């Protein structure tokens, strides 16, 4: 088993697991507590439009994904603030339009396109050192912002109208949060793929929030759980010779079901 660690693609994959878990734990917690799971799914799928565009024009798909997910984030943040109603409809529309744009661009791109699949279903074993640097930067940005505005994010998640009455920049904080979700989505795309991002973003935080009653602790435990799922899923997929992204998600999903049971049956386990 230890010999597989000597491969550089495996080392990269492990490092990616660590870096992704940090963003996952921190952002995922805010997503779960602020009930933004659906919007995260919308941002993730809209990002595919950017991947397709990048393939068509021949630049790095990660950059295309960053551009599209940030654009989708701002659009969704804006519509949420302006219209307040039917936001789920708008998210659903952007979700589908992003995917459609990606597929059309893929059609228009000549040649072999199997690589596009890796953005849909993930390929943690194909993570390059450039990807790792990008992930590190995203982690630093995301964690820095959350540390800087921790108390404000907590306040707006708990009670937005009170935060507004205190004259906090509630709308700006919301847009920043959705943009951070967009960045996290691009990282996760490499690991589990766009289709399964919501699961990895939310399951660790959802499990942690079953047992802990403090946002910072939930972020910590969610990071740890996410690490267990990505690394554990990676090794399982290697041993079983299955798609890594799907194994990671199934592992997380199974853990969530067990956690639900434990939280229900074992009161003292809950903080």
């Amino acid at each position: 088993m230890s010999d597989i660690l000597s491969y550089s693609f495996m080392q990269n994959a492990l490092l990616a697991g660590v870096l992704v878990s940090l963003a996952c734990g921190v952002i995922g917690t805010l997503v779960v507590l602020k009930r933004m799971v659906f919007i995260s799914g919308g941002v993730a799928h809209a990002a595919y439009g950017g991947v397709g565009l990048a393939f068509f024009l021949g630049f790095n798909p990660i950059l295309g994904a960053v551009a599209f997910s940030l654009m989708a984030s701002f659009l969704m943040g804006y519509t949420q603030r302006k219209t307040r109603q039917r936001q789920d409809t708008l998210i659903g529309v952007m979700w589908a339009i992003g995917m459609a744009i990606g597929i059309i661009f893929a059609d228009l791109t000549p040649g072999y396109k199997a690589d596009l699949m890796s953005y849909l279903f993930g390929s943690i074993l194909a993570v390059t050192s450039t990807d790792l640097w990008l992930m590190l930067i995203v982690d630093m940005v995301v964690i820095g912002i959350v540390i800087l505005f921790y108390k404000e994010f907590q306040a707006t998640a708990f009670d937005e109208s009170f935060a507004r009455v205190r004259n906090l920049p509630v709308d700006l904080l919301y847009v920043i949060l959705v943009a951070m979700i967009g960045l996290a989505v691009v990282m996760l795309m490499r690991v589990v793929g766009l289709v399964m991002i919501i699961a990895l973003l939310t399951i660790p935080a959802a499990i942690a929030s079953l047992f802990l009653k403090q946002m910072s602790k939930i972020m910590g435990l969610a990071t740890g759980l996410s690490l267990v799922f990505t690394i554990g899923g990676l090794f399982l997929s290697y041993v079983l010779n299955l798609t890594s992204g799907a194994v990671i998600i199934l592992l997380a999903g199974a853990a969530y079901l067990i956690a639900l049971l434990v939280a229900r049956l074992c009161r003292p386990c809950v903080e």
Partner: protein
Amino acid sequence: MNHSQAKELTPDQPQSSRTTAPLVEIRNLYAGYNRETILRDINLSIEENDFIGLIGPNGGGKTTLLKVILGLLTPRQGKIMVMGQPPQQGRQQIGYVPQNITYDSDFPIRVSDVVRMGRLGPNRLFKSYNPEDDTIVMERLAWVDMLDHKDNSLSELSGGQRQRVYIARALVNAPQLLLLDEPTVSVDIEARAKIYSLLHTINQNGITILLVSHDMNVISSYVKTIGCLNRTLYYHNEKKITAEMLESGYNCPVDLIAHGLPHRVLAEHERQDS
């Protein structure tokens, strides 16, 4: 600009030297959402040291009125001043206690963190909480008799305990005015009494209070004046539900008045079938 903001709120402090202009002044105000106008021609002056209870049915515009005062909803027409300023500025001196049911009761947060939230503001954006914040938070928690629960998770508390935590949060900035939206919803009778005596003490310490409720029973004897809000406001600075109130077009919910209301709140039966 207001020296009373910095003043410490201790129970035995004599109150003096506050401005005599109305804390909130509303003139001919209309407000609503989308195409529906909920509040019509509202006139209200909240004076210093008032303790006003507004009753009215669900959908009568009670929360809407609070939102207008808090600058969360812009009125269609009419004038509103809070502490002599537009609501978005004046609201900094309001302590707001939202309805209990607006919260996710499982939200993972400790009692002391909820109360500390009251210290937030634009000037605190890049600064962390400091020992002074903690001192004030503990003091307010003691005031509402929740100090023993400071490290508890909010989700472990009863409805009445939570309500007192929100009141503590509203008090951490020494507000001049306290706004409460249905403070006794999902609170048992014993806890209700505790909340009302707490509000009474707060009012006696010079903090003006406006509370709204759909339940007549909660308008206890501590309230100094009563009004009725059902799209329009009937309020004449009196502590009586008059026959006029009931019989005019204001549609105060008569069924609520019928049961269990403290007698002295009801006016004598002076109507002679008009």
